[in-house]
């Protein structure tokens, strides 16, 4: 019942807003209520078991075997928590909207509700449908309320992600069909009981299709070029919600379906995935260095960091996969913070060109502080959850196939990925230096800092990053039981 409320709260609020409830107040209330309920669910969550908790299930179509079923295990719990936190921040950061204010807030809430629904769904149909539900408002937000060349960016992301979803759909259908008839079900729990019964041959095909489908959604190299355009054009709250939460659906899907159901397929494509994720880390990292605009730099940086999460997934051991899950969470918070502050800067200066900005910390100290926290979290400074996650990923990846005589592909990939840590420091500190440090330009002398009310969402994001950075074991304890079961799947 609790989980049902969490899922429906943002969607119900969106509906209320569309029929005339005061937009900002309703949205804020609903998002805070969702966060509080999620924290309550976290507090009461039984950490020792891997089974789903807070289950609610309604039959939608008995004939087709489709149920509306939601439930939480450790993995989906932290995803929902991420969504709830970022939603509060995104709505709080929403400023005066010039046109269709109600629709703007409704779109934000629908993204949030769709993402939470997708993470909580136990039914394949709703898992897919909720994600689609969240995508549509994302396109609208970019197309209607975006910046600069918004309609081109909106079309690009629409076509690209629609293609990704379509490939994903194909993969899901094939997955469904590859399960022996007795175990065939839309219910993820039932499907997972069939783990190990899918023929290795089939696993290979399906994994590749899922990897590409999910990969497009997560901006896996070379399917990443929609991301910088879309995030540069998107209004800040939309960029926060998409880069922080919705995009992670693809990674969540891989962890939820591919790791337990298709281990042989994953194993088969390991080398391919390693090459692609190094494309994310090294190649996209270099592209990020060359960016001359803050928004595109952040967009590319978020693409780059997906590489580390994929590295954890590719390592397919408890350490790496747990690290990947925690990095999903941590990256979502830090990128949301960065996009939020970048949006505030854009609002005041009307430019995102790095060389036009400079010295802003002098007039916007709070913004400078907040962006600094986000930037150092993103580049993996210890103390932030990102670092704890990256440590687990590096250690997890490095021990795969380790032999003292010579380095194998995982060791080489780890070395290159570690070099990415240097690359990310280069672009992030360069941008920070250009925007916030140095001499203050004459025309920025009268800028005003963030309004005091924004301290709350900033604090919320930073405290979450620091809390799990200082005490990552709290997430490890939640995640290990379920990931442990996923990784111990027997091979046919």
């Amino acid at each position, binding site marked *: 019942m609790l989980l049902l409320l969490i899922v429906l709260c943002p969607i119900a609020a969106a509906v209320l807003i569309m029929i005339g409830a005061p937009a900002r107040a309703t949205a804020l209330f609903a998002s805070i209520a969702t966060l509080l309920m999620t924290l309550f669910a976290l507090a009461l969550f039984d950490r020792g078991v891997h089974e789903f908790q807070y289950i609610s299930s309604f039959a939608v179509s008995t004939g*087709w075997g489709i149920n509306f079923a939601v439930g939480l295990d450790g993995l989906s719990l932290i995803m929902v928590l991420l969504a709830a936190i970022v939603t509060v921040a995104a709505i709080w950061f929403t400023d005066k909207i010039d046109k269709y204010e109600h629709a703007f807030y409704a779109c934000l809430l629908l993204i949030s509700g769709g993402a939470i629904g997708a993470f909580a769904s136990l039914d394949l*149909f709703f898992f*897919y449908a909720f994600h*689609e539900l969240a995508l*549509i408002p994302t*396109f*609208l937000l970019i*197309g209607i309320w975006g910046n600069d060349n918004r309609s081109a960016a909106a*079309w690009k992301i*629409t*076509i*690209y992600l*629609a*293609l990704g979803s*379509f490939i994903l*759909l194909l993969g899901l*259908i094939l997955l*469904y*069909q590859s399960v022996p008839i007795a175990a065939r079900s839309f219910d993820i729990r039932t499907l997972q009981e069939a783990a190990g019964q899918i023929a290795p041959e089939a696993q290979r095909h399906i994994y590749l299709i899922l990897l590409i489908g999910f990969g497009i959604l997560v901006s896996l190299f*070379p399917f*990443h*070029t929609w991301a910088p355009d879309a995030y540069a054009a998107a209004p800040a709250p939309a960029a926060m919600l998409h880069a922080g939460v919705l995009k992670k659906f693809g990674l969540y899907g891989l962890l939820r379906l591919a790791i337990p159901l298709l281990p042989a397929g994953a194993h088969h494509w390991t080398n391919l995935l390693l090459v692609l994720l190094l494309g994310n880390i090294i*190649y996209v990292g*270099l*592209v990020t*260095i*060359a*960016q001359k605009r803050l928004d595109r730099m952040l967009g590319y940086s978020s693409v780059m960091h997906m590489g580390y999460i994929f590295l954890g997934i590719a390592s397919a051991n*408890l*350490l790496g996969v*747990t690290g990947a899950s925690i990095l999903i969470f941590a990256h979502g918070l830090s990128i949301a913070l960065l996009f939020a502050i970048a949006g505030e800067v854009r609002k005041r200066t009307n430019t995102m060109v790095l060389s036009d900005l400079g010295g802003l*910390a*002098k007039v916007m100290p709070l913004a400078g502080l907040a962006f600094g926290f986000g930037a150092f979290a993103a580049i993996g*400074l*210890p*103390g932030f959850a990102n670092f704890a996650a990256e*440590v*687990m990923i*590096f*250690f*997890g990846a*490095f*021990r795969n196939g380790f032999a*003292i005589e010579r380095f194998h592909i995982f060791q080489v990939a780890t070395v290159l990925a*570690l070099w990415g*840590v*240097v690359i990310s*420091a*280069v672009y992030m*500190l360069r941008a920070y*230096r250009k925007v*916030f*440090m*140095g*001499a203050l330009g004459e025309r920025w002398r009268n800028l005003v800092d963030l309004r005091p009310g924004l301290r709350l969402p900033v604090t919320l994001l930073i405290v979450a990053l620091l809390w799990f950075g200082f*005490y*990552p*074991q709290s997430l*490890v304890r939640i995640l*290990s039981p379920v990931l442990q079961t996923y990784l111990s799947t027997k091979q046919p």
Partner: protein
Amino acid sequence: MIDNNIAWYVLFAPLIAAALIVVFTRRSKGLSSFLSCAAVLASFAGACLIFARKEDAAPALNWIEFPGLFVVPLGLVLDGLSRMMLVVVTGIGALIHIYSLGYMRNDEGKSRYFAALSLFMFAMLGIVLSNNFVMLFIFWELVGFTSYVLIGHWFDRDAAAEAAKKAFITNRIGDFGFMLGILMIWATTGSVVFANIAPRLSILTSNPGFLTAAALLIFCGAAGKSAQFPLHVWLPDAMEGPTPVSALIHAATMVAAGVYMLARVAFIIQLSPVALDVIVWIGTITAVMAALIATQQNDIKRILAYSTLSQLGYMVMAIGLSSSDAAIYHLFTHAFFKALLFLGAGSVIVALHHEQDIWEMGGLSRNLTITFVTFLVGALALMGCPPFSGFFSKDAILALAYEHNMPIFVLALGTAFLTAFYVTRLLVVVFLGHPRSHAARISRESPLVMTGPLIVLALLVIFGGSTFFTGQFVSVPPEHDVFEKVPLLAIGALVLGAGFAFALYRNRPREAFDIGFLRQKFYIDEIYSWLIDRTQELLARISAFFDRWIIDTAGVGGASGGTWGIGALLRFVQVGNLQAYSFFFGLGVVALIYFAVFR
């Protein structure tokens, strides 16, 4: 159990102060500085208590725990080495906090400064106390971060902003190697805890190549933090930070962290003779190179910065000669006299209204008597003049080199000569002769909060020479008679260098000679920026071009090609995104149901 928790209080007091300042007292500069000073004094008191009681354990908990796979405890190591470092770090830290009250009294960002200083204390104490590699790495990076914040304290100056960035990135390059070394050690021994690695080293010793690689990669981290060639370039630029920061972080403590870490993991490094050879030569190159550059610098803080590089080179040299004791001994004495010299330089800089060019100074011994006398004590110790502390610790390293490696000894002796030369040049030009600027003529001595720490440090440097005092803290290598060969040679180099410089610079109004490639620091910065421009920047530009014109074009082309039918549909429908998309979405749902149900 309560007693054993003192170490935790020592560690966390500064963090609590930093957090309180950031969250609550940012507006009140006075309260912020008070909190910060109170925290460091509390830590110092705790450190003294730990030192006196000789405790050797504190309770631990686990930061990350995957049983049987990967465990990172937050555990503290309290042995002789870390107890000594605790006292030194908190002691010098406390003096510099107090000195900062004077130096930074009118600074706009005083709260930020003290918050960062407290955070630095936390991170540095963390390095000292860590009992495992990952925890060490955590605090290692945090120290780099606080150094970034403090170098960039005056962030509206372009030079400071650039220097801060350069310091962090250079350190990250070192840390890349460090982390890799840690991974290699962990992958073979299965633990990151020093005490658990030690008994499992046999796997490593049977693979000498692997061991050497791991040891050198760990050394990479130390080379970054302790600014050893070729990662030394950030330290001179770091002088853009406030002078007390230069004294605490970029002279006495943080840059010594690399040496401390090497001493901590000496049990691994010493197993590889090849690694030791590389380390000893890196140390020697750094020592000689930095001393050569120092002879031609004009900024008082940069001269001291290069002397720090050079002295760190000595310490690394000692590590390479497999004597951590000698390295730590020099680290200990150097911390005091170099902090003293920097604080003295700070006092000069304040008296001259932030003038740092030594050729704008002169004759300051008359107006700044306390500063001059204390600076002289520090300078003599740095030159290695008996009976000051620097003499004994440098002598220990020279004797070691003499015993093991003649070429190293000759170069180390040459460095001693150069050190005497540039330090005397500095003394003569700044304090003797006639004032060369108006500011120098009307300069006045600094207030007591600044001269007080100078006097305390000067006393420590003087008494630090006695084995009785020093022996309480570090294990002093057996003392040599002053009339033996090595100390005699060292004193000879000292007299020669000092005499030469004195004769050359006495009563001279400007530089005596000009050697371009020393003045330009061997053009290393220029070479690096050329290299970066040709590699990283070029690659970045090519990648960006490729991404924009190849991948994006091909990708979008492919995507729209693959969805041409949908595109046509969208064109057909001709209404905004929502309808078109929901139509497509509807098709998707139908397709899903069709395949699922009817197959």
